């Protein structure tokens, strides 16, 4: 028999055979076929013959890339293939490697030598293979080992090789920042060539680099400027514009110089991609240049008029970038925007929806929302929810800034929740509760809306609305005093279909029912006292405290003494004389009715109903439900003794028993009427940390462990009064868990995203309210009259803010919206900059500044050559020179970059080796201080946190950038 290798070679199936074979299989037999082929490959790949091996490897690569067959086991064979002297084997090997290797491939270190050999090869195609491979799989070690080879290739005589080497540099810098020291100068020099593939490659690299840390590349602005003016290659121009978008905010004077050439390109070029890039650059970075904006707007208009949906979309997109600062651009194109709302393409619809919402203002909001909600009814479910979402987010901006008529808004929320496709339950839930807490005047309407939602049994069937119903239930329980008919509410809360609700929301229902029960019994007692007109000391006191809840005529008579300490009453009668009438009219009528209806029997009925519904629940498997049911049942038992036998009431012990029951009721009622207010999300942070409490240390490990576990969002709220702190927290986490397990992942993820973005408008977790009294003085009085911190100051705040906020021209005064201080806006997450980036930008900084310094002192730098070459452009040369001068003037110590470099690599031992280096370092430290000072000024409240978090690595990153562009 022939040697096995020969047999294999002659009878081996080639790649084409495999592909054909797979194609001929039915989908059922495919996997069997493939596994047979894999068996074959496993045998063949062990062959000593490279031809057999490489063919096997190629087949495996094919199966891996198309059928996701694992090929990590073949990594060593791939390395064997690239070491073959034959090009076709090498090619197959490299393809396999770049497809399958990752950082964790164990044998990756073995290829370092082979790649080096190929990089040095005389065959340019082999070099190119090695470069391609390195760009794809380069690890820290590979990049370190091969940096010098790549550097040599960057000056290769072949454009083809040079171009690829430049491309690889990106990977090199990312993995091994020290490579900057070797390659960066070469990279900058490559910028200076004329319009060629090289410039294209370099600009691409800089575009990527500057996206991460633009400041370091500011010194190169003149070079980019030259390319912007000279280059004819649209691709290069687009990339250069992208770089300038990053640089412009850092150097205000750049804009003035750039506007002209960019507008030039915009006028002249025929390429739509370049026009669009110019537009985008102008509308993002040069918003204050009126003429440029006008030109951009004109070009956008052209885009909008095109039939191509892509251009139309991009036009709309550009306008939406403009919208915040230049609303006129939107208004000018109003027709197209409205028209696009009914476009076929979802992207275009979405973009125009954003624009429509951008146009919404106080005056046209109601009309806009009405139109949109009607439109939402007709559109497909996805877009319907987009519309609802954008209405919700627009309206809640800046604590409901645009809304004047809250009654209207609340009823709009109610209307939205009835739209069949509505999946925004959670969002509406948050807003209902938020508005309830912040806007007192809207509460009667809110309760009415909530009632309508609760008594509709159809809504219980839609799982997306469950969260919304929980808000409605909470509102009804919390503000039950505004209700026309509490008994009806109670029935709604206890209706049989509530068994459809998840347990976390069911507990809210139960708690609300409990609140309503307390309210009813309490008012029954009050009413009885009124009737018997036995005004004992106790009773009068009670009446004082509750007069606001029962704003009856009698209570108002007593209100002389009340106003001193009853917040709501005083508020209404002084600040809203016009509203008081209607408000009282509204609230006194129901109370009156309620008095009539709250007879003894109805209370007994209520108690019986509750007992009936809750008794089975006391055996519920859910701990929360069980506990609440038991609590309520216990209470009912207590009260029932009194109500069940009315005959005893005439007897002597009546007084004593009734007093006990009514006292309990009173206490609980007191607890429930304690007003809940919004709490800043940062409130917790303002609690001073006790000295002995170690918070910052050693917890990073923990974070790594718990990274995957989602903690309850800070913006969540609880639905019970603060005295139930513990259970409240529990129920919140329950809610959270519920939310996670809900099938509606899409809407919830959207909402959590929204929550992240608009943290301000979400109410924070209840537990923050408990230490409210311990807060340090919230902030200096000068900051804002709207500031408030703890719940008890709400009234004072309302008085103050009204004076300044009230707008006389509105027919109906805008109700007070309780706001927290501005600082809560964004809980500042001082993210630690990545070490890698730090090193990279630090290194680049050294090179650049070192370069400039050298350039000026020793006249040998090639950039000078080029500057003299370009004598024609006097302005530009000036620019370059002055830049160098300044660089020298301000950074005199930078001619020794490497020593400093090694210093902030963080080897403590090299510190203070040279006095010069030290001085230098100190200077930098100052800069760092300045920077962090700035940050501190910005977020004064987070001073201590900032300080603790401020990484030391920041220090070398923020030196003063001299003025490069004059």
């Amino acid at each position, binding site marked *: 028999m022939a040697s096995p290798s020969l047999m294999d070679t002659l009878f081996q199936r080639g790649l084409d055979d495999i592909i054909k074979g797979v194609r001929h299989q039915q989908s059922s037999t495919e996997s069997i076929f493939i596994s047979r082929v894999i068996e074959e490959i496993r045998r063949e790949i062990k062959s000593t013959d490279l031809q057999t091996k490489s063919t096997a490897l190629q087949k495996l690569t094919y199966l891996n*890339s198309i059928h996701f067959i694992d090929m990590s086991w073949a990594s060593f064979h791939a390395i064997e293939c690239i070491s073959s002297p034959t090009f076709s084997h090498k090619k197959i090997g490299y393809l396999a490697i770049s497809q399958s290797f990752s950082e964790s491939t164990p044998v990756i270190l073995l290829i370092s030598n082979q790649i080096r050999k190929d990089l040095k090869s005389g065959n340019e*195609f082999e070099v190119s293979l090695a470069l391609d491979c390195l760009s*794809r799989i380069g690890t820290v070690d590979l990049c370190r080992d091969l940096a010098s080879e790549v550097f040599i290739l960057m000056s290769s005589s072949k454009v083809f090789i040079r*171009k690829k080497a430049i*491309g690889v540099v990106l990977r090199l810098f990312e993995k091994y920042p020290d490579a900057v020291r070797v390659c960066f100068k070469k990279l900058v020099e490559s910028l200076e060539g004329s319009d060629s*593939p090289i410039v294209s490659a370099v600009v*691409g690299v800089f575009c990527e680099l500057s996206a991460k840390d633009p400041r370091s590349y500011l010194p190169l602005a003149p070079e980019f400027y030259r390319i912007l003016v000279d280059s004819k290659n649209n691709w290069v121009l687009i990339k250069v514009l992208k770089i300038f978008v990053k640089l412009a905010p850092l150097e205000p004077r750049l804009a003035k110089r750039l506007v002209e050439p960019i507008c030039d390109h915009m006028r002249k070029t025929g390429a739509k991609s370049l026009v669009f890039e110019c537009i985008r650059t102008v509308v993002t970075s040069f918003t204050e240049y009126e003429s440029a904006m006008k030109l951009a707007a004109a070009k956008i208009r052209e885009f909008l008029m095109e039939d191509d949906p892509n251009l139309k979309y991009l036009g709309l997109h550009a306008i939406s970038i403009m919208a915040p600062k230049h609303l006129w651009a939107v208004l000018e194109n109003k027709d197209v925007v409205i028209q696009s709302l009914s476009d076929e*393409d979802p*992207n275009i619809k979405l973009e125009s929806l954003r624009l429509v919402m951008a146009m919404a203002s106080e005056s046209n909001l109601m009309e806009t929302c009405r139109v949109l909600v009607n439109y939402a009814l007709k559109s497909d479910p996805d877009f319907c929810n987009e519309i609802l979402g954008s209405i919700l987010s627009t309206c809640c901006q800046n604590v409901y800034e645009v809304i004047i008529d809250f009654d209207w808004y609340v009823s709009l929320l109610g209307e939205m929740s009835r739209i069949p496709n509505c999946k925004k339950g959670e969002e509406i839930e948050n807003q209902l509760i938020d508005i309830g807490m912040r806007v007192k005047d809207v509460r009667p309407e809110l309760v009415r809306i909530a009632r309508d939602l609760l008594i509709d049994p159809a809504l219980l069937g839609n799982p997306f609305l469950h969260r919304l119903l929980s808000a409605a239930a909470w509102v009804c329980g919390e503000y039950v005093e505004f209700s026309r008919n509490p008994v009806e509410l109670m029935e709604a809360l206890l209706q049989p279909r509530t068994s459809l609700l998840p347990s976390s929301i069911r507990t809210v229902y139960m708690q609300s029912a409990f609140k309503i029960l307390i309210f009813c019994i309490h008012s029954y007692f009050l009413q009885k006292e009124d009737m018997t007109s036995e005004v004992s000391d106790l009773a009068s006191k009670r009446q004082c405290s509750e007069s606001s809840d029962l704003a009856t005529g009698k209570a108002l008579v007593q209100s002389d003494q009340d106003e001193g300490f009853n917040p709501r009453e005083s508020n209404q009668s002084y600040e809203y004389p016009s509203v008081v009438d209607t408000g009282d009219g509204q609230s006194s009528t129901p109370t009156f009715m309620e008095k009539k209806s709250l007879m003894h029997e109805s209370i007994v009925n209520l108690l019986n109903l509750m007992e009936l519904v809750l008794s089975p629940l006391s055996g519920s498997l859910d701990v929360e439900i069980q506990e609440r049911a038991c609590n309520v049942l216990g209470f009912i038992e207590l009260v029932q003794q009194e109500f069940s036998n009315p005959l005893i009431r005439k007897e002597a012990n009546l007084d004593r028993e009734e007093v006990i029951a009514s006292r309990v009721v009173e206490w609980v009622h007191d607890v429930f009427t304690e007003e809940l207010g919004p709490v800043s999300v940062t409130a917790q942070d303002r609690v001073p940390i006790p000295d002995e409490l170690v918070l910052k240390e050693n917890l990073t490990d923990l974070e790594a462990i718990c990274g995957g576990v989602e903690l309850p969002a800070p913006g969540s709220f609880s639905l019970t009064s603060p005295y139930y702190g513990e259970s409240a927290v529990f129920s919140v986490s329950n809610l959270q868990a519920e939310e996670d397990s809900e099938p509606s992942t899409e809407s919830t993820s959207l909402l959590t995203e929204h929550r992240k973005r608009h943290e301000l408008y979400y109410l924070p977790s209840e537990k923050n309210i408990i230490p409210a009294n311990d807060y340090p003085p919230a902030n200096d009085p000068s900051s804002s009259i709207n500031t408030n911190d703890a719940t008890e100051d709400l009234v004072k705040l309302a008085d103050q803010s009204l004076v300044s906020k009230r707008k006389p021209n509105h027919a109906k005064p805008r109700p007070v919206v309780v706001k927290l201080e501005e600082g809560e806006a964004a809980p500042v997450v001082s993210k630690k900059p990545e070490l890698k980036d730090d090193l990279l930008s630090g290194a680049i900084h050294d090179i650049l500044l070192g370069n400039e310094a050298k350039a000026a002192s020793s006249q040998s730098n090639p950039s000078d050559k080029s500057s003299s070459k370009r004598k024609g452009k006097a302005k530009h040369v000036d620019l370059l020179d002055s830049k160098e001068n300044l660089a020298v003037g301000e950074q005199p110590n930078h001619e020794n970059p490497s020593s400093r470099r090694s210093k902030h690599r963080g080897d403590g031992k090299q510190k203070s080796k040279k006095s010069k280096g030290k001085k230098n370092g100190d200077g930098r430290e100052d800069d760092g201080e300045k920077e962090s000072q700035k940050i501190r000024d910005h977020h004064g409240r987070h001073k201590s946190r900032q300080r603790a978090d401020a990484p030391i690595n920041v220090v070398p990153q923020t030196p003063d950038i001299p003025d490069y562009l004059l």
Partner: protein
Amino acid sequence: MIRFILLQNRQGKTRLAKYYVPLEDSEKHKVEYEVHRLVVNRDSKFTNFVEFRTHKVIYRRYAGLFFSLCVDITDNELAYLECIHLFVEILDHFFSNVCELDLVFNFHKVYLILDEFILAGELQETSKRAIIERMGELEKLELKSQAILSVKLTCKNLDSRSQFRLPSPSLSPLVAA
């Protein structure tokens, strides 16, 4: 920067996938499935851009094949649209009237072309002619190396054959002659 490039047919079969960011195999599978779902049902009158997670996918359909590029959210959509077209033109030129089967059977060549075209997620070469020329040279080189190889193989085979045949007495005069 280009995150990945995908060629998929309407059934969702991936014809080519090149990733410029490291991804696990399972993740790749998921990405391909999701991208296919995103693009396959879009009307030809729709825009060619879709948001995909935190990036965006620029896609273009040629007959039954979807060419999808995943790029950063700030990247220029139109430029990448042109980039896809350029790639297709190159393929078309190289395979002279390219069809899906060409890509299936020559997947390694498509990868090579792609490597000439895009490196490390950045467009390397915008000239169609330059890439076609390079591919021509590569083909030649490969043919040459294959030729050398087959010559070697033949020699080796001849060697082994002669080893077998040498002892045969009837043939020895012929060989000697």
